[in-house]
């Protein structure tokens, strides 16, 4: 069943969404069917695109809205929210 879920999270990674943390997030995001979007200060990024996630320039403490729509949206949000809140390394 097509579903859309949305959650606001505070970015926990010490170095923001830099190369390594961004790569970890994107790899996880790619494992889901759903469309995954990150929004920071009106800027939108495709959660499955390393380039667009990097271009957000997100830093530790930033508020990020995570929007997920698709069949596995519920599973995806449960997996990805803790990822953004924790320290991705």
């Amino acid at each position, binding site marked *: 069943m097509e579903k859309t879920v949305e959650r606001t999270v505070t970015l926990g990674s010490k170095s923001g969404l*830099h*190369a390594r943390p961004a790569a970890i997030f994107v790899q996880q995001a790619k494992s889901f069917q759903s469309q995954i979007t990150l929004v920071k200060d009106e800027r939108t990024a495709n959660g499955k695109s*390393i*380039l667009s996630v990097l*271009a957000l320039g997100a830093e530790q403490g930033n508020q990020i809205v995570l929007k997920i729509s698709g069949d596995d949206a519920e599973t995806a949000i449960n997996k990805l929210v803790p990822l953004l809140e924790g320290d991705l*390394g």
Partner: protein
Amino acid sequence: MTVLRGIAAAPGLAVGPALTLRPAPPVDLAEQRAVAESVETGRLVQAIVQAMALLERLQKAAQGQLADILAAQREMLDDPELKQGAIELIASGSSAEAAIARVAARYADQLASLPDAYLAARSEDIREVGRRIVAELRGTSTAIVLTQPTILVAQDLAPAELAGLDPALLQAIVTETGSATGHLAIVAQGLDIPAVVGITDALSQVDTSTTLIVDGENGIVTINPDSERRDEAEKRLREVQRERRHLEIYRDRPGLTADGTWVEVFANIGSLAEARKAVEMGAEGVGLFRTEFIAAQGLPSEEAQYAIYTEIAATLCSPLIVRTFDIGGDKPVPGLDIPAEANPFLGWRGIRLGLDQPEKVFLPQIRALLRAAATHDIRIMLPMVTTPQEVEAARALINQASLALAREGYETRPVRLGIMVETPAAALTLDLFTGLIDFASIGTNDLVQYTYAVDRTNARVRARAQPLGVATLRLVQQICLSGIPIAVCGQMASDPSAIPLLVGLGVRELSVSPARVPAVKQALAALTLEEMRARAQIALGSS
């Protein structure tokens, strides 16, 4: 026949065919497609698949830092937005080449505009990815694969590009840009590959298969040599090889003076490839691992550093002395905000920067080293030390890291700590460091520069510095009087005329570029300790 003069970057002689690496002609960003949209889109998708296959091949052959760069580039190649952006431009009439170049440039500009040097540095990666796809579209894909002994001629070569090549087939390197002290020069010296840099119009005069003679000692490149020059070079090459075979007997024996005093001969390295070379040349350990070389793309994480240190230590099976990051205003690192300084050699660098930024710079490296030292003989060396207080502060941080690791369940054990002696302040007061450090290593290049107040990058005054001058030698004498075990890891350590003086004054470890190890052992074997002491006394200039 043409003779070109450049800058001697790494010694050695080579004769052989050139392989030119030319910068690709720029893409016309306004170029329109000549075929139907679906055909052009097909070309693009095909090119991305090919570029991906090439990167996977390169990645398999790469190690460490280089493997990380290639992994990041692969991730970008596989990016859905990159592909989608290009497909949209093709739909509106653009050629595939122009489309991918425009989308790559757009992301590169976005990343470059972020107020973060680390992300800004990633913009180079996406440009490189764009170039790789364009090369596939044009059918000029650029995997450098050497199939025969080759002299590489390029505009510039990053150490990463060099690291991916087979050192057995790479005979020599010629570049249009670069300096004698640049990264390329140091890496080439470590791999024992002759290099001449700064030949400004090399690519306009050389083609692939052109025969070259590269004289890395004198910085001379001869294009299409006549038979007389070629015979002469080949004769010299045979002599050098004979000399090498003669030196081989020194490889497997320790560094000993004629009367049997043991002076350890160690190697200076900056990469895993150089560690392998050090083992091959018979180094008894590594006296200086320049870790700033693994930070060219930004400071690696604790995990990445742990992997590098463990891999190198396992390759060596002998002591590995790791110098903590020696970075500063003249060696910028992506992701670290180091302001430009009027006098970077007298500025915020080495241990000063490490102690001021413990969380970002010093502690992750110390944690990685302590973890690796649990299973390998790894020792830590601090750069640019001037006072015992700096060592006390560093010790406190090392103890803090060690306790934290133990709490986290890691096995740790005490690790030996040493300092670089490269300031007159440390040289004159080394006795005050007794009990704080286990060893010290003289960085002669910097010590000479600070003692004679001569900037070694300034060609006008460079010759005024006196590595073997009385001032330098008296400082070495003072250092050895401290009773702390003393090594030398600067250029002096491989100079045959300096070796007797250093050993005569009390130095018991010489750390040199891997290729020089056998020659240093030979120089040690030429004189007894007594004879070296007598030479040192004369050189000290005492009446």
